[in-house]
């Protein structure tokens, strides 16, 4: 019995230890932002990298997600003569769930992996130690700008993804499913509430923070040369993806549970 429980207990304790280390890492990094020097240019550069350069991949996934959603909703709802709900389902699904989740996952794959690889390489080639010896706090210089950029850039990215996703649904709805464009748009706006969009943007901000935190944490603590950097990159993407899906449920429950 003891032999059976020991590994479970050890895994649980290891999980708690890692969680604690990540929270301390995030706290120290954010805490560094309250004292000078500040690096606004580096934050701006990261915002451009995360937000602007992720637009193509997020836009493409958003448009196809909206299109598939319209098609699948129509297939399902036509069995109950509820085809008119397609536009409403598309807009609510995209703004509340799919926009932030799809954008978060895409950014985790594109940006989180790149951050872990870049910071990990800096770690194993002593560049992070070099920053310290040059009187520069690596958390303030490398990590904080990325965390702030993740918080700020993702909501903008998701806003664009929402619009593109809804447009994808509109294209399928009007060109393939023969909805009247005007009535489709009316349906789209009719049941959409401010909270639907705002909740999605808050989720986006949280996901942006999680993606950059995982990328920075795993990169910062990578060890053992190229293999260690590769492992850090994998951990960054996998942990960020799992956390996005987990936090999506938690936030949805917090926003909409009655």
């Amino acid at each position: 019995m003891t032999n059976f429980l020991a590994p479970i207990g050890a895994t649980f304790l290891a999980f708690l230890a890692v969680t604690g280390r990540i929270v301390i890492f995030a706290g120290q990094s954010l805490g560094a932002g309250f004292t000078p020097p500040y690096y606004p240019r580096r934050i701006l550069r990261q915002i451009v990298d995360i937000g602007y350069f992720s637009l193509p991949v997020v836009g493409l996934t958003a448009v196809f997600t909206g299109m598939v959603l319209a098609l699948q909703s129509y297939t399902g709802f036509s069995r109950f003569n509820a085809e008119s709900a397609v536009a409403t389902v598309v807009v609510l699904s995209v703004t509340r769930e799919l926009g932030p989740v799809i954008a978060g996952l895409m950014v985790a794959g594109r940006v989180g992996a790149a951050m872990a690889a870049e910071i990990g390489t800096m770690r194993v080639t002593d560049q992070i130690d070099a920053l310290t010896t040059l009187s520069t706090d690596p958390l303030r210089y490398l990590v904080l700008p990325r965390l702030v950029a993740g918080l700020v850039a993702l909501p903008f990215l998701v806003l664009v993804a929402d619009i593109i996703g809804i447009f994808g649904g509109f294209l399928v709805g009007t060109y393939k499913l023969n909805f009247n464009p005007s009535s489709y748009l009316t349906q789209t706006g009719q049941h959409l509430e401010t909270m639907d969009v705002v909740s999605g943007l808050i989720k986006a901000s949280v996901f942006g923070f999680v993606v950059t935190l995982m990328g920075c944490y795993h990169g910062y603590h990578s060890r053992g040369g190229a293999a260690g950097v590769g492992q850090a990159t994998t951990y960054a993407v996998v942990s960020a993806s799992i956390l996005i899906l987990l936090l999506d449920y938690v936030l949805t429950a917090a926003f909409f549970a009655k």
Partner: protein
Amino acid sequence: MTQGTTPKISVRGVKKSFGPKVVLDGIDVDCAAGESLVIIGGSGTGKSVLIKCILGLLRPEAGSIRIDGVETVGMTRAQRETLMRKFGMLFQGGALFDSLTVWQNVAFGLIQGRGADRDEARRIALEKLAAVGLGEAVGQLSPAELSGGMQKRVALARAIAAEPEIIFFDEPTTGLDPIMADVINDLIIKCVRELGATAVSITHDMVSARKIADRIAMLHKGRIIWQGPTAEIDRTDNPYVDQFVHGRAEGPIEMEVRAA
């Protein structure tokens, strides 16, 4: 102890382990102001760990490290950042920032660490590059475009750019051909003398150690087993030192390797 006799660096009883592996087992070593101390020892004996403990990159489990008589173990982040301004460091692999150009690497500590004006920092960076024999054109290149020897010279220029009081050299000649290694040794001597800095180097290159050291200390199994003026290293009767400096396969160090 009066100010005049206070060692620039004083290390007492420093211990550091990684898991069950004891790397530093009570290190005692001093370095006087303006002195060039070289720490020698085989690979994996803890030379880099010792230098990282002095720099504050690693925290020792026990012992005291004083810089100018001030205890540095347990310093806060802010205190450490201020202390770092006394230090310059040449890393074994150069550790140049590959996202920046050569001159930006050299000027980094001036701009980011000390808030210097960008144009002024650029001027100083080019001046330091010239001091290590690199022209202005090199300043515009990326570190990836440089040879190993040039990267070491850029790293040296970066280490001396802010004119630190103490400069650390981690295996400065490793991986270089003998001629380039000698060039780097000459540059280290020149730069340290011009700055009047204290230098602490770690190496297993005895040619380099003999050339740049005023005093040599040998690290073995986590302890300083011998230290003295450079001229005395060939006269010591310590069998470990004798084996190491003559690079003999047979001797007490090899016997221990075999026993393991």
